[in-house]
């Protein structure tokens, strides 16, 4: 282990990572590793990572340096432009990777065929290298040539089918959720391989991570569910078995917006009835299972909504949480979260200034270590660091 490890304080100090992956999954993996101390060299083609062209933009005029998606996913990195599609560029890329610990790429089967990139060409020059290939479906199997998008991933991963109203179109999660989830698993894959290499003397390796497997792993119940098909339930929590939940586990309206009530246990249902002043509901067995008696769910929704009609979300949140010990939360909008006192007290966000995009508020790494949030620095401009790495 190099001695610099002992002098620095972040877990991945001294680890050098090269990424050619674009968009969200690979770049988010590298961003996470960068916030933990690794040096991240982002290799971009001359036209730049495709996410640079993804709206919304922070600048009205410069649409290469102001995409919110790019700015967020590439904090703390250096940008080096290499056109690895030609032989001179590929030579430069291989040189750069020779001294790296980790290489993150997103070349699927067709890209590998088109550019003649096999899984050995980087490892043969650097046997200690950990190469992570992140693709939607992987390099083999019936879907390995399929086209993807967040909507497609959510559909095949069994998540889309769980979101939305029972009789209506199943709904996607906003933004790029499958890509982010895969990004976290990307960081996990790399850290496990580094552990193996650095503490057990294993060599480097080529690792293949897929979005579809990441999503398939995130169902709460076993997929067979005793032969039951899990149903989407709109503003309610989707049942995990044929038993379902009691009423009151739902998203319903207060005076100034919506509230989500969690639950599922008899104790919570009792507390809810106490809060509503409706202990009579406990005596009525229609309310034991909202999925067997959908009417009962609607009745309780109405009782809750009239109880909250003159109360703000903040008032309901405080009363239900602190007096009745109910798991409950306001449905907050993005702008409201930026003003929220709990998030502010945790320093959940930080302001970062970019020379073109200006100042914006970014989520910090999502944990505190010994009470501190780790800081990240701005994302790079296209090719800003090319001269430092390529002569």
């Amino acid at each position: 282990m190099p001695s610099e490890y002992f002098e620095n304080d972040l877990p991945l100090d001294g680890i050098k990572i090269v990424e050619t992956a674009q968009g969200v999954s690979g770049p988010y993996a590298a961003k996470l590793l960068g916030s933990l101390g690794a040096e991240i060299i982002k290799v971009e083609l001359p036209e730049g990572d495709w996410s640079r062209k993804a709206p919304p933009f922070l600048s009205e005029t410069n649409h290469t340096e102001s995409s919110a998606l790019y700015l967020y996913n590439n904090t703390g990195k250096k940008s080096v432009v290499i056109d690895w599609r030609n032989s001179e560029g590929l030579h430069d890329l291989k040189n750069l990777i020779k001294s790296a610990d980790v290489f993150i790429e997103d070349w699927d089967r067709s890209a590998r065929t088109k550019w003649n990139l096999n899984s050995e060409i980087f490892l043969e020059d650097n046997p200690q290298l950990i190469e992570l290939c992140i693709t939607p479906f992987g390099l083999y199997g019936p879907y390995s040539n399929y086209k993807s998008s967040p909507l497609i991933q959510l559909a095949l991963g069994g998540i889309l089918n769980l979101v939305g109203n029972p009789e209506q179109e199943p709904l996607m999660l906003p933004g790029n959720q499958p890509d982010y989830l895969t990004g976290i698993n990307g960081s996990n894959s790399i850290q496990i391989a580094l552990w193996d290499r650095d503490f057990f003397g294993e060599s480097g390796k080529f690792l293949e991570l897929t979005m579809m497997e990441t999503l398939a792993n995130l169902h709460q119940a076993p997929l067979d569910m005793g032969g039951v098909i899990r149903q989407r339930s709109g503003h309610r929590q989707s049942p995990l078995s044929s038993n379902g939940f009691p009423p009151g586990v739902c998203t319903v309206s207060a005076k100034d917006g919506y509230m989500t009530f969690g639950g599922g246990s008899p104790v919570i249902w009792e507390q809810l009835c106490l809060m509503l002043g409706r202990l009579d509901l406990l005596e009525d067995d229609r309310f034991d299972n909202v999925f067997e008696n959908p009417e009962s769910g609607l009745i309780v929704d109405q009782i809750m909504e009239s109880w909250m009609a003159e109360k703000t979300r903040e008032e309901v949140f405080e009363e239900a949480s602190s007096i009745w010990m109910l798991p409950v939360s306001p449905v907050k909008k993005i702008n409201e979260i930026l003003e929220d006192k709990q998030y502010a007290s945790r320093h959940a966000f930080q302001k970062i200034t970019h020379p073109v995009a200006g100042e914006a508020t970014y989520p910090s790494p999502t944990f505190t270590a010994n009470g501190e949030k780790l800081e990240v620095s701005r994302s790079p401009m296209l090719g800003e660091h090319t001269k430092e790495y390529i002569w």
Partner: protein
Amino acid sequence: MPAVDTVSSGALRHLRVIDLTRVWAGPLGTRTLADFGAEVIKVSDPRIPLSRVGKINDKLNRNKLNIALRLDKPEGRDVFLDLVSVGDVVIENFRPRVMRNLDITYEKLLEVNPNLLMCSMPGFGLAGPYSEYPAFGSTAEAMSGINSMIGYVPDRPLQTGLSYADPISGLNLVNVILAFARRRSITGKGNFIDLALADSPLGTLGEFFVANSATGYKQDPNGNRHSQYTPHGAFRCFGDDQWIAISITNHFQWEQLKDKVNDSRLESPEYEDISGRKANEETINRILEEWTSSRDAAELMEELQHQGIPAAKVSNNLDVLNDPHLNKREYFSFLKSSVKDIEKYDGQAIPGNQKERSKWFPMRNLGEDSSSIVMEYLGYSKYKYLSLLKQGVIS
């Protein structure tokens, strides 16, 4: 030694994790560590049976040992402190006051293990105005903003229905434990991590915060519509609750789709460019659904993908279990329980040096490893073990 092998294979072998977590986020994260060979010792309350309803606990607690221990009794707390003294990592997801009441805070645990790595997974964080409020994955997701963007119409947000803050937090737990366990191995320094459920989804919504803070940009619930492209959504297919997702994001894909549908109404010159298609989204969606509604979703996916069109059957849980791609890739795991046949569970999405599959084992029963843990790992005499058993401190 316990009757199962927790030490001989996988990249994380020799990492010993004391796991106090319950429900989903915590157990999902510690399961991942266990799948890679970490020795995860799940600490359960002897009074609370491990529910087998829906096999949710079975799914999330494979490859972990189980000790049943009364933390609320002084003798049980002493056993726990001994366990912590031989562990590397402690993870818990109680409400903050529970750990204080049990007097097993990080400061206390440092007295028996000065370089302990510990992670707490509270709902909203260990400090701050909401810190004592109860939270679940379903309410933490509401707090984090994701619900405000899900729904059919702008003024009616819906929940994900699947407690989305939990799985993200489970993945984040692995990330942060690996990082600080590495640092601990190198520097000998422990750490205390506060990983709040309500913080995790912020990380997967980053672009929305960046854009909103700078320009006021907002996204209201709007079905599956894409801000620029059409068609983008799920369309009814033949059968009960059968759908196909289609996600057109460039001109080539649109041309290919138009060829397949072969409906003269889609030839309108208005639909030549993106903005024209966006302006006529309802009409295009209706024509498309007329076409998809008599077709089989799985066959249609294959046909459309063959033409380079991003399309996918909307799979339910059983479809995922039987999915030809996942099965071909040998994604699933098969666990042999002692009483029943082999059961098919999800595998491990993270590639690398996992615990050897032949050594994977199903969830252990409540207290199944209590005796071997206290006698072999903690060096208690048989007499001491039996007296703890008799007092009801362990089971």
